[in-house]
């Protein structure tokens, strides 16, 4: 399912400041689309707008051409599923119960799950490798396991669009890679359009098909990872001096952050030294072609 975001503006509350100042993006069917940007740039808000949870003050979100605001929550949930950034799990539901909740948008009021629903939930659990945890309490799982359970719950909805808010947050590198490979496979093999807010620039650069970089509620850059993750953009948007190289194993960018940039007038001023314009080049020594992508620096 193609997701198109058209010039979306959004502010929390009637009088609150505007968080998104006209953002547009398009995510094609079966692709993994990354959304990156500094804290407070509106990434998570954009995701909520795309999911129909936050209603934009102007602009629209189209799913295969259909405006999501014309759908009921139930209809929207049959098309779009999401896994939030840090979902606090309070009640000790079992893993199976949790995943089964994903079937809700397909169930009618007062009916119970059929064997078909059980099969779909099982399939989702197997897809994310949590089938063996079915009887465990979700409160007793590790973060990595819990994340895969929540993705399984989203898959049980049989969505055609999957929204992920920092799916690798608080995970160790092995689980980060595991989750990202799962997510990439879901997009490429199952044809789900995935839009993921990512924190880690190297993971974004390595796995995403396209990336949108947000800066203060606007799309600062959009395109293939190599086009978006550039030294200029990183200085501009994040205010850090970085070296962007190539990964040794595939033609993807690898980001090395050198230091916070002394940028005047910006929000990320770390020192008095260096009077540089907004588009100034970092004066860090460039070690051209540095390419060891093993270290994920944020």
């Amino acid at each position, binding site marked *: 399912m193609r997701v198109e975001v058209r010039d979306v503006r959004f502010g929390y509350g009637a009088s609150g400041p505007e968080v998104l100042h006209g953002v547009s993006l398009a995510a094609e069917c079966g692709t993994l689309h990354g959304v990156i940007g500094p804290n407070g740039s509106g990434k998570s808000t954009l995701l909520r707008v795309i999911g129909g*949870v936050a209603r934009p003050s102007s602009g629209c979100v189209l799913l295969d051409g259909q405006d999501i605001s014309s759908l009921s929550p139930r209809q929207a*949930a049959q098309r779009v599923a*999401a896994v*939030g950034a840090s*979902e606090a799990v309070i009640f000790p*539901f079992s893993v199976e*119960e949790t995943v089964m*909740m994903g079937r*809700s948008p397909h169930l009618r009021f007062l009916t119970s799950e059929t064997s078909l629903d059980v099969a779909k939930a099982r399939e989702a659990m197997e897809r994310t490798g949590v089938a063996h945890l079915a009887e465990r309490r979700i409160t007793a799982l590790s973060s990595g396991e819990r994340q895969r359970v929540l993705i399984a719950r989203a898959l049980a909805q049989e969505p055609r669009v999957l*929204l992920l808010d920092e799916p690798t947050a608080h995970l160790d590198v092995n689980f980060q890679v595991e989750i990202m490979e799962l997510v990439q496979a879901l997009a490429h093999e199952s044809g789900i359009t995935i839009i993921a807010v990512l924190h880690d620039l190297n993971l974004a650069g390595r796995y995403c098909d396209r990336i949108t970089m947000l800066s203060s509620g606007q799309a600062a850059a959009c395109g293939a990872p190599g086009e978006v993750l550039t030294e200029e953009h990183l200085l501009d948007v994040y205010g850090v001096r970085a070296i962007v190289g190539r990964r040794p194993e595939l033609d993807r960018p690898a980001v090395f952050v050198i230091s916070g940039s002394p940028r005047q007038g910006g929000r990320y001023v770390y020192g008095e030294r260096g009077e540089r314009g907004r588009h100034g080049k970092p004066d860090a020594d460039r070690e051209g072609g540095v390419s060891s992508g093993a270290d994920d620096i944020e």
Partner: protein
Amino acid sequence: MLAVVAWAASAGTAGIPTSLALRIVISRIPLVGRALAQWPALLMARLPGQLPDSLDPSMLESAEIIVLEVRLPRIVLGLLVGAGLAATGASFQGLFRNPLADPYIIGASSGAALGASIGILSAGRAGLAALSLSSPSSYIPVFAFIGAVITVIFVYALSTVDGHVPTDTFLLAGVVVGSFVWAVVSFLMVTAGEDLPKVVMWLMGSLSAKSWAHVRMTAPYVLVGTIALTALGRDFNLAACGEESARYMGLDVERFKKVVILLGSLITAAAVSSSGLIGFVGLVVPHIARMMIGPDHRNLIPVSALGGAVFMVAADTLARVIIPPREVPVGVITAMAGAPFFFYLLRLRKKG
């Protein structure tokens, strides 16, 4: 549940044996009663217990009145109030994702207290002796119900922002408004004079001296409300995952919140207005039920209701018989019995 009802029907100062009490109750259940009339010997013999040998008709008559008009309405009301409070407690804990939530958290209790106090005091002041003597408890529940509903509406209106009701704001508003209303109640109590004991007794909560009128007033709200909450079980499960997650799984969260707050408030108002503030049932019974059967609200709400009903009637019967001929307010018993049991369960779960 049947065992508790049987105990509750027979225990007491009048000394009516269980066997007799059971027979009286059963004889009045419509279909079964008629069957009993047709084959009395056969079925009566199968009931447990021995009838006393000498049953003179006048004693039978008074026993019938005591059981049917005094104990039975009290038992049925206890079942209803316990079920309603526990079901509402389980619902609010799920909706607000807060283990400390109980039916009283949104201000219904303080509102009912204010309504009841005003009712009691104005009756005393105006010298409505005739009214209060003829039906001492018929108008106070009405005052209490109105007070509870008005308070919840006020809390709701206070916390509504742009048509949304943020959960945290709502809970906070409930607590704040509750404190204010309690202050007003305290003020009224200071000025109450000789009516003070009545107010205090009402606040402590009791099922004593309840008639079928109370049952009729409470039953519709509790029955309809509890069944409706149970029917929403799956939606409660989604809501328990967090509002945003629930929304992504297709739940219209704002509408759901409104429905649950409405149902819960009506149940609570109906329960509180007929029997005063009986604490702990709505807080602890859902926790105990959750520890026993897990957090799936499709089972949790009906099981809580059943548990609350049984717990309430047992506590009330204990309240009647523990220091005869005086009665302990049932709220005292629910807290005294509930707290240690809950603590025991907590410890048990920690070890396991």
